[in-house]
């Protein structure tokens, strides 16, 4: 290639990151070449620190700084409601609303035979253990409204309901404050199907 060898190595490493193509990798690499030594050091430190200090919460499998994450250890959270999500980033989305008072459970994926992911590879056993441990009233299934998200939610409903908890699925429909005109047809059709009387 046309890059000097260390630069080529950096571009190559950046290209492996999600959402980064050859062009972006090149732009980032050239940017990193120009930043000060302090900035370089703090970036390296941030990466090292995140690798050293972030672990998984032993209860909900979200990312955590300790064995138990802040949400699971907080006395202010209602422990009888568990919101089941596919990925840690889904928790961030829900937490931004500041409305949900319960706790979470991260499956770490969804059931997808095409990707070789079966229920046994997700944190389902751990979820069942939390329920059989007692004190749980409701499980909210908040996987994405995709085929695989639905498959996972239906599978979970099938095995969790016999445990005697209330199992709910988040609603799908029109984005609030959105324009009907801009909603795609899939969303509009679902919204019409799931309409409610007022």
């Amino acid at each position, binding site marked *: 290639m046309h890059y000097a060898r260390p630069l080529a190595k950096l571009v190559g490493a950046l290209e492996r990151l999600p959402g980064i193509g050859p062009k972006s990798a090149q732009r980032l690499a050239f940017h990193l070449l120009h930043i000060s030594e302090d900035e370089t050091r703090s970036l390296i430190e941030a990466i090292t620190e995140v690798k050293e200090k972030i672990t998984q919460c032993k209860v909900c499998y979200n990312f955590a700084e300790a064995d138990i994450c802040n949400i699971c250890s907080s006395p202010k959270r209602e422990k009888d409601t568990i919101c089941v999500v596919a990925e840690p980033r889904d928790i961030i989305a829900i937490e931004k609303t500041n409305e949900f008072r319960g706790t979470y459970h991260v499956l770490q994926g969804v*059931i*997808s035979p*095409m990707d070789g992911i079966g229920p046994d590879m997700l944190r389902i056993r751990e979820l069942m253990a939390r329920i059989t441990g007692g004190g749980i009233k409701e499980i909210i299934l908040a996987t994405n409204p995709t*085929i695989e998200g639905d498959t996972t939610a*239906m599978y979970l409903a*099938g095995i969790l309901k016999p445990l005697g908890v209330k199992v709910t699925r988040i609603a799908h429909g029109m984005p609030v404050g959105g324009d009907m005109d801009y909603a795609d*047809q899939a969303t509009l*059709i679902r919204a019409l199907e799931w309409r409610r009387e007022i």
Partner: protein
Amino acid sequence: MYLTRLALQNFRNFADLLFHPEQGLNILIGRNAQGKTSLLEAVYLAATARSWRAGRDSEMVKWKAESAHVEACVHREARNDIDIDIILSRNEKKQISINTIRQNRLSDVIGQVNVVLIEPHHEEIVRGEPGRRRRFLDLEISQIQPRYCLLLSNYRRILDQRNRLLREMEYRPSGSGVLQVLNEQLASYGAEIIERRLAFVDRISSIARVIHSQITEGLEEMDVKYVSKIDISLPDIKESFQTRLQEIGSEEIRRGVTLVGPQRDDLVFTINGHDARTYASQGQQRTIGLSLFLAEFEVMEEESKEPPIVLLDDVMTDLDEIRRAHIFEITSGRCQAFLTAPTKKSFDETLLSAGKIFIVEEGRVMEE
């Protein structure tokens, strides 16, 4: 609805074309390989987001060009006018915009403009392979029901997941639990697809039967039946779909593939009660095909409250008077139509005077 403007860049053999068709009948005359059919293809592409004859999108890109551009402006009576913009690249996915807004879902594109295409070998719908008849059903229903397009793509996704699981069942400890869920999803989407197909076949066949009877002067009676390995006579198709899946479960696991469902269903055409695929002559099969496409025009006009655009690719030449008259009935003033032929000699004066004649030559279109 009618096309008011068609702009092509590097599409097939059109380097740069701006074409303003007539609101009524457009007669495209030209020798072979001059671009007549490619013009129809561009209109078809704008309506359905695909070609009926190109295996890959890149086939439509002009030789040595990087990408092709198709822009179609369509006036619609029942809805707002629409500009459809399609960029086809050699290596990337096609980009489709409607009124300059990028569209990512096929279901938001298909059905905005309706077309009916009649090909020279329209008997193929009767005697061709079953996949051809399923494609016909899927495309025509998608054009009038955007919901159908979504159902299809969801169904295919579930089918892919399920086939993969069936192939790998023995290595999957909780496979049967997941299979139960996928059965439920497959049956739910599949049953809705079958229900919509049944309703469509019902409608189109009742119209096609009348047209067919007129063409054959009452001598022959045609019928179309939807056939499935699932018991579709029962009121609850989802339930009968699931029952069937339970019955054949072990065979599906053994063979590693889903054996029933809309992806395996077919249409059977009959003449006077006999299977037209094996017992009808090519002429009889052609008449069925023509009746079906003419009926499609009627169904589409009813559904979208205005006539679709009709594309006739080199079909007039070898049709007799009575069949021509049926086509002429819809192309003379009822809709916008594009008709291709190698020479003007193929047509009589009445037809020629009803339309505007364009000469297609080496990727250019000229008014006569």
